[in-house]
C-alpha cells in the first residue's frame, strides 16, 4: 500500500472533490473557453471576408 492509497482513505472527501469534481469542472471551464474563443475567431474571419468582398 503506497502513500496515495493511504492518503485517499484518510481524506476521502478531498480525494473525491479534487480528483473527480475539480477535474470535471476544469474540463467544463476549458470547453467554455474554447467555444468562446472559436466564436471570437469566427466573427473576425467573417468580418475580414466581408471587408475583402466590399473592396472588390
Amino acid at each position: 500500500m503506497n502513500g496515495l492509497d493511504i492518503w485517499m482513505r484518510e481524506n476521502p472527501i478531498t480525494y473525491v472533490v479534487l480528483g473527480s469534481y475539480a477535474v470535471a469542472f476544469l474540463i467544463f471551464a476549458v470547453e467554455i473557453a474554447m467555444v468562446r474563443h472559436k466564436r471570437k475567431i469566427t466573427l473576425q474571419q467573417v468580418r475580414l471576408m466581408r471587408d475583402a468582398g466590399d473592396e472588390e
Partner: protein
Amino acid sequence: MAINWFKYSAPTTFYGLAGKLIPWFGISAAILFAVGLYIGFFVAPTDYQQGEFYRIIFIHVPSSIISMFLYLIMAGYAAMGLIFNTRLSSMMATAIAPTGALFAFISLWTGALWGKPMWGAWWVWDARLTSELILLFLYLGYIALHASIDDPRRADRASALLAIVGSVNVPIIYFSVQWWNTLHQGSTIKFSGTSMHVAMQQAMFITLVACWLYAIAVILARVRSIILERERHTKWITELPEVKN
C-alpha cells in the same frame, strides 16, 4: 407538415433562436449543479459499504449517460444530414462530437478514481469499461475524420458513416453488465426503478439535468460558430448585427 419542419431547421432561424436560448441553459445548469452537489455532499448519507467514495456517482453516472445519449443524437443528426441533405443536421452532429468526447473522458476518469479505492484497481479490461473506452475513440475518430477532409460536405458524409456504424457500440455499453461477467456493477437506474436512497437519487437526478443543460448550452454555442463559418458567403450573415459593427 414536413415543409414546416425544414423551415424551422434552417440555419437562418436557428442561429438567432440558439443565441437567445444559450444563457438560459447555461444559468439553469449552474444553479442545478449547485443544488445537486449541495444535496449530494451535505444531505445524502454516507453509503453502508463505500463510505464517502460513492459520492463520485453524482458526476460519474450523469457523464456516462450523457456520453452515450449524445452519441446516439450525433449519429441521428449525421444520418439525417446524409439522408435529407439538410445543412443544419450535419452541423449539429459536428458540434456534438467534442462535448460527447469530453463527457466520455470524464466518465472514464471519474470511474478510474472510483475503482482504485473500491475495487482495488484503476482500470480493468471488463466489457463495460472497454466499450466506454471504444466510445471515446469513436468520438475522437469522428472529430479527426471530419477535420481531415477539407470540403465540408464531403467531410460530413464520410464522418456520418463512421458515426452511424459506431452507434452499434452504445447498446453494447448499456447491456454489457448483463450480457457478460464484469467487475462493474449492474445498473442502479433500471426500467423497474432504482436501488438507491432517496437523497442520493435526488442529487444524481439533479446533477444529471444540470449536465444535460450544460451540454445543450455548449453545443448550441458551438453550432452557432459553425453556422457562421459555413454560411459566411451568404447575405444574412453579413447583415447580422455582430458582424456589421
